[in-house]
């Protein structure tokens, strides 16, 4: 076709140098071998330690399993099996360093940005801990956008901080994180993870698989191993949503009596969740339980069932004050855990430990409280706003300052 030939002619000036350059690269690389085969979806295995000796494996592994045991105890779960995960100790001697400029350390913090109360609390907690420890914070906000964060990380790294703490907005930042680590900056991933975390010192986070599996196990136990379940996860393509959901589906698959009737996305929005749940009410009148990854979503679920005049099936999610306020005094059954925004404090601690040359774990899994409807009175904060994630590690005074209480 004529159009076609003209097209390729137009774009040749563009393609040709690229092709030449890449052919040259190809000749030097000259291999049919796959490079660094550790990356790839799912799993959560960062590849760093796989080839080497795992240092202090037993103690590290025990700390990992402890988070699972505690959650199982708090929710009264009988068979919560930790997903397979190798945790090792990292020798941080190569990272140990004096402050590069002046007296105090400068720690860069690539944050989510104050797009919601989680992001706000997350960065305020980080700043507070930084003040306590006496380090300077170099801050960048991604506004919740992975593409913006790629630029943020490059920019923070170019200012040569002593360490970099990143709240990952998506795997799109992997290359830039590796580049920062390549510059000799110790990187700590905070409240999230990357599929390929081989270049970072440590990943400090509440484990997605733990949340997803614990919610699922609790539902299975509530239903006695029999019944229909709907799976409501957050936002398509976002790791926080997809990994939790994958872990839950694995648990449900182990129980032949459990039927997952539908999987939907709530966008972590009560409005969307309510519309989705209103549909569940009519489409699956015999639904026995709802697995959800978010308390915001559960708000909508509860309203949809209450307005339809139907009993609310057991739900799961993370602990947001609005949900607790809404269900206090009702007979709604739920299991909640948290993805605490304050984990940024531990992220900073881990970065400081690395700078001091103290041993750290390559994966620090945060422990945080989980509870059910029976303990609601211990956790609900009637005097605080809806947006507070409970229980909060920040002092009341600061919560008031932030307008959260």
């Amino acid at each position, binding site marked *: 076709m004529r159009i076609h030939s003209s097209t390729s002619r137009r774009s040749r000036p563009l393609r040709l140098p690229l092709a030449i350059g890449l052919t040259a690269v190809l000749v030097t690389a000259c291999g049919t071998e796959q490079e660094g085969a550790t990356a790839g979806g799912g799993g959560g295995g960062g590849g760093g330690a796989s080839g080497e000796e795992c240092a202090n494996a037993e103690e590290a592994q025990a700390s990992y399993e402890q988070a699972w045991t505690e959650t199982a105890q708090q929710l009264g779960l009988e068979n919560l099996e930790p997903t397979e995960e190798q945790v090792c100790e990292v020798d941080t001697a190569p990272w140990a360093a004096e402050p590069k400029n002046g007296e105090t350390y400068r720690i860069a913090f690539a944050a989510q940005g104050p*797009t919601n109360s989680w992001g706000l609390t997350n960065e305020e907690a980080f700043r507070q801990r930084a003040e306590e420890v006496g380090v300077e914070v170099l801050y960048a906000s991604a506004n919740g956008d992975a593409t913006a964060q790629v630029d943020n990380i490059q920019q923070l790294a170019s200012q040569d901080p002593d360490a970099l703490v990143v709240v990952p907005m998506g795997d799109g930042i992997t290359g830039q994180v590796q580049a920062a680590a390549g510059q000799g900056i110790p990187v700590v991933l905070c409240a999230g993870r990357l599929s390929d975390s081989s270049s970072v010192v440590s990943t400090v986070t509440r484990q997605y698989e733990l949340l997803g599996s614990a919610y699922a196990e609790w539902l299975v136990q509530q239903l006695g191993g029999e019944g229909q379940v709907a799976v409501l996860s957050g936002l398509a393509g976002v790791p926080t949503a997809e990994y939790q959901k994958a872990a839950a589906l694995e648990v449900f698959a182990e129980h032949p009596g459990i039927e997952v009737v539908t999987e939907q996305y709530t966008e972590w929005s009560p409005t969307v969740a309510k519309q989705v749940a209103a549909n569940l009410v009519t489409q699956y009148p015999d639904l026995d339980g709802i697995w959800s990854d978010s308390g915001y979503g559960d708000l909508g679920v509860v309203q949809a069932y209450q307005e339809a005049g139907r009993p609310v099936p057991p739900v799961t999610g993370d602990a947001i004050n609005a949900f607790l306020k809404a269900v206090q005094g009702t007979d709604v059954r739920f299991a909640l855990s948290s993805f605490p925004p304050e984990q940024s404090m531990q992220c900073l601690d881990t970065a400081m430990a690395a700078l001091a040359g103290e041993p750290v774990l390559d994966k620090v899994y945060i422990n945080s409280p989980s509870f059910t409807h029976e303990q609601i009175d211990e956790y609900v904060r009637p005097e605080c706003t809806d947006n507070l994630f409970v229980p909060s590690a920040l002092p009341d005074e600061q919560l008031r300052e932030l307008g959260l209480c």
Partner: protein
Amino acid sequence: MTTGAPPTEAAGPARAGASAGRDVVRRALSLLAPLAGLAVLLLVAAVTTPGFYSAGVLQLVLFQIGLIGVTAVGQTLVLLVGGIDLSIGAVIGLTTVVIAEHSRGDGERLGVAILLATAAGAGVGLLNGLLVVRRQVPAFVATFATFVLVQGVITAWTRGAPSGNIPGELSPLGIGRWLGIPVPLWAFLVVAVVAGVVLGRTGLGRRLYATGANERATALSGVRTRWIIAGCFVASGLLAVLAGLINAGYIGYVDARLSRSLDPNSVAAAVIGGIALTGGRGRIGQTVVGVTLLAVLLAWLRQLGAGAGAQLVVSGAVILLAVWLQGSGWAARSPRRIKQRDGVR
């Protein structure tokens, strides 16, 4: 977009005065494509999701029609004068934040809060209108800029965590029913009827169509086209406030995600209904059918339990198909002429 197309394309103000008989035929024709699409969709839904025709689902669809419809009417007004409004989602979000922050859950302060929200929405609409008519900024860019700006205002004001609650007094607007029909649908019907009457039966409507079809010619004939264009943006802003109130009443919380979404539903509904992006062509009836089709589609996809990918694919295909059908002669227009200036915003 302020000025219309070159004179070759002008439909001119005279169009509105076509003879009544031909008008009825043309109206029927313009509704035919979206109605046929709706019929096909209902058929497909019946075959693929057996539980689709139940009272529960009907209620859901009716509610959804109301929710999308209110903003779609505003969008239609803007499209008719050759613009587009991308700031609707941001205004919806701003409304819920204003209500929560000002009223703090106190029903007695609700009235003032609504007034403030209305002023804010009208202000955003006015800003859009002024950018478009005074500075001749393309509507697409002007409203995208205010979209970003409003988000920025919300973030700077609330630091990402709005405090305060939505008063319970607002909930009837979101979840109430009257004569068994959801209140949001009533709101939409009232808005649509008013808009339909203004557009179809008044001099203002005629001037509005003329402005959309050819602004310069209309301006030369003495119509204050700038006022009309700016007025459409303000109307769209006000209707977005109404949608925000309905949303606030529906869920009772400030939904942080609302203001971060571009709310493509209002554009999609108008486009599916056959409102021309060039301005000057399209009737509220078409928007109503487009809204209905979109609401049914969303409900059906939800029933189907389709994944995120499939939902997007189907939405895209439906939009393309709807416009293709209209383009291939059903709307009684030559494709050549549609192509000429469409979508240039």
